[in-house]
């Protein structure tokens, strides 16, 4: 999920997920604090869990940081790469749906016609409750 979030955020400039992991340069000089890791874990609902994962995150950030090297002086910022396009307006007709069976095929578990998710109110363990891995 973390990978996806990063991918969504960066896919326009970077061109995709593969770019993120494969092209990440060795200049991972960024250092991330334990608090920042915890914050990201909570936002993304992902357990970095290891030094390796943190190193990968640092590399990803370093990769994205290269955007800062592009000279944008005098360039008007864009809202979106599609900003000069017309936003297509659809007529208010029902043309989709009625495919519960197909949609539910993606679900790991199904009860009647419902998706089943884990109980929706368990928060991540607190920072001090977590088993910490060593992190510089």
């Amino acid at each position, binding site marked *: *999920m973390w990978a996806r979030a990063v991918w969504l955020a960066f896919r326009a400039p970077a061109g995709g997920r593969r770019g993120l992991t494969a092209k990440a340069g060795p200049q991972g000089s960024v250092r991330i604090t334990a608090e920042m890791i915890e914050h990201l874990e909570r936002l993304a609902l992902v357990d970095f869990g290891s030094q390796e994962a943190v190193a990968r995150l640092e590399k990803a950030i370093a990769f994205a940081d290269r955007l800062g090297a592009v000279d944008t002086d005098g360039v008007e910022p864009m809202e979106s790469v599609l900003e000069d396009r017309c*936003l297509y*307006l659809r007529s208010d007709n029902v043309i989709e*749906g009625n495919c519960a069976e197909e*949609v539910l095929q993606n679900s790991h*578990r199904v009860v009647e*016609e419902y998706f089943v*998710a884990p109980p*929706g*109110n368990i928060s991540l363990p607190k920072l001090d409750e977590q088993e910490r891995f060593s992190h510089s």
Partner: protein
Amino acid sequence: MAGPMLRWCCPVGRWALACIDGGSRYGRGAATGCTSSGKRGQSSVAQQPRITAQKPRKGEHEWAAVVGLEIHAQISSNSKLFSGSQVHFAAPPNSLVSFFDASLPGTLPVLNRRCVEAAVMTGLALNCRINKKSLFDRKHYFYADLPAGYQITQQRLPIAVNGSMVYGVCVGKKRSQVINKTVRVKQIQLEQDSGKSLHDDLRSQTLIDLNRAGVGLLEVVLEPDMSCGEEAATAVRELQLILQALGTSRANMAEGQLRVDANISVHHPGEPLGIRTEVKNLNSARFLAKAIDYEIQRQINELENGGEILNETRSFDYKLGCTVPMRDKEGKQDYRFMPEPNLPPLLLYDAESLPTAADPQQVINIDQIREQLPELPSVTREKLVQRYGMLPEHSFALLNEVGLLEFFQNVIKETRAEPKKVTSWVLNTFLGFLKQQNLAVSESPVTPSALAELLNLLDRKAISSSAAKQVFEELWRSKGKTPAQIVSEKKLELMQDQEALEQLCHAVMEGHPQVVTDVKKGNPRAINKLIGLVRKATLSRADPTVIKEILEKKLSPGDVSGPSARGRTVQP
């Protein structure tokens, strides 16, 4: 923002399972009660007598409360905001879900024209400035009923801004006077609704229905211009009536088409505003005012007991009648807003800027929508006051009940009775019967024509007003009978036989010489007693004014009754 804060308290996904170990649980409905969370004497809150923010006890600092509202109204449309699946309440689970609604890879949003028009219409009705260019953004949060992991909303540049809405609050001892208040409308934004979660605590699982996911919402943000629960509830009610008049939302709170969050703070007048809390889950018209007043009072008590108000999200517990904190405070949320990359800016036009060669299906003309706006409730009320000489509060009452205005108008159309009489019958008798039996106007056993006929009988003095009440009760009980049938069956016609009445009057006077003497001595109330006795003798079938005339004639010296006595009105 269909309640993302609500969800923040319980962030979860299947990914979360990996790292759950002894984590504490914060349930949506996990009411810990207002006493258990209490430090600094919160427990006293529930027991203390309620005092309103405006009326402090003597010797106390005066407190002023400030209330702002965020209202989510589901747009009344055939299909969803960005997909062609149907919008319908209570359909079989996941039957109204397209691949886009389920957030399958490769699907893209396609904006529904109707939803844009509904937003423009609502913006115009709320005196907003319509932004000719507005933008869509992604707001990220994790919850199982939001499969994309983000909601498409309008954070940077919403479709409508800077409006206002006037609503009427009842004041005075009998609450019979209406004063108008104005609340500013900060903005209206278009956004997606989320799906629904059914929590199965027993099996420790959550069932997800995505039928609602992606339905178009109007988020209407009202500035903190209200000062108590009643004002907020009245403002919500006015917005509800406006949305219904426009047809942009059905705004039925019971079906979740109108959902309210309130931002509440208290301060001493003249001092800076206090720290605010946000109360979620105000999804019942009945509890809206109660929940807000509770929270105002809780904050006042907390501050007076030396406590402090935390900037937190609370929810109103309907069973306990109090607000409870919803999540731990350390978690500062981060929605990671970003421009929605798949939707270019939304451009709207007016008559001037409309491109000449444009496909009419692809452009929205604000001026054209303005011309087509239906009559708004405030105008309807104004017209009622002018046309029928009705009191403003009666015009409010007529609009407040679904279908009541139509019922009233249908009665008016078919009766010769005075509009004031019709208003009184519809608002007192008819509405009273409905309320007593908890019925909607559409469920009434009495039709407008039947009431019109009854009022006609009353108008031409064929029956007395107390007989009319009897006929009405009978109409209510026995569907299908006409008032005329009931009148003749029950022999409720007014006694028109002057001679018979005179005889009855005579007999009553003979039977009560003491009262007669009292009248002659000049006791003005004594004659009412005689009138009452005669009416009783006629089984309430005689017109009291006629009885009074006869009695006065008989009691006056000679045959000429005094003009002053005749002019006096009688309350039998």
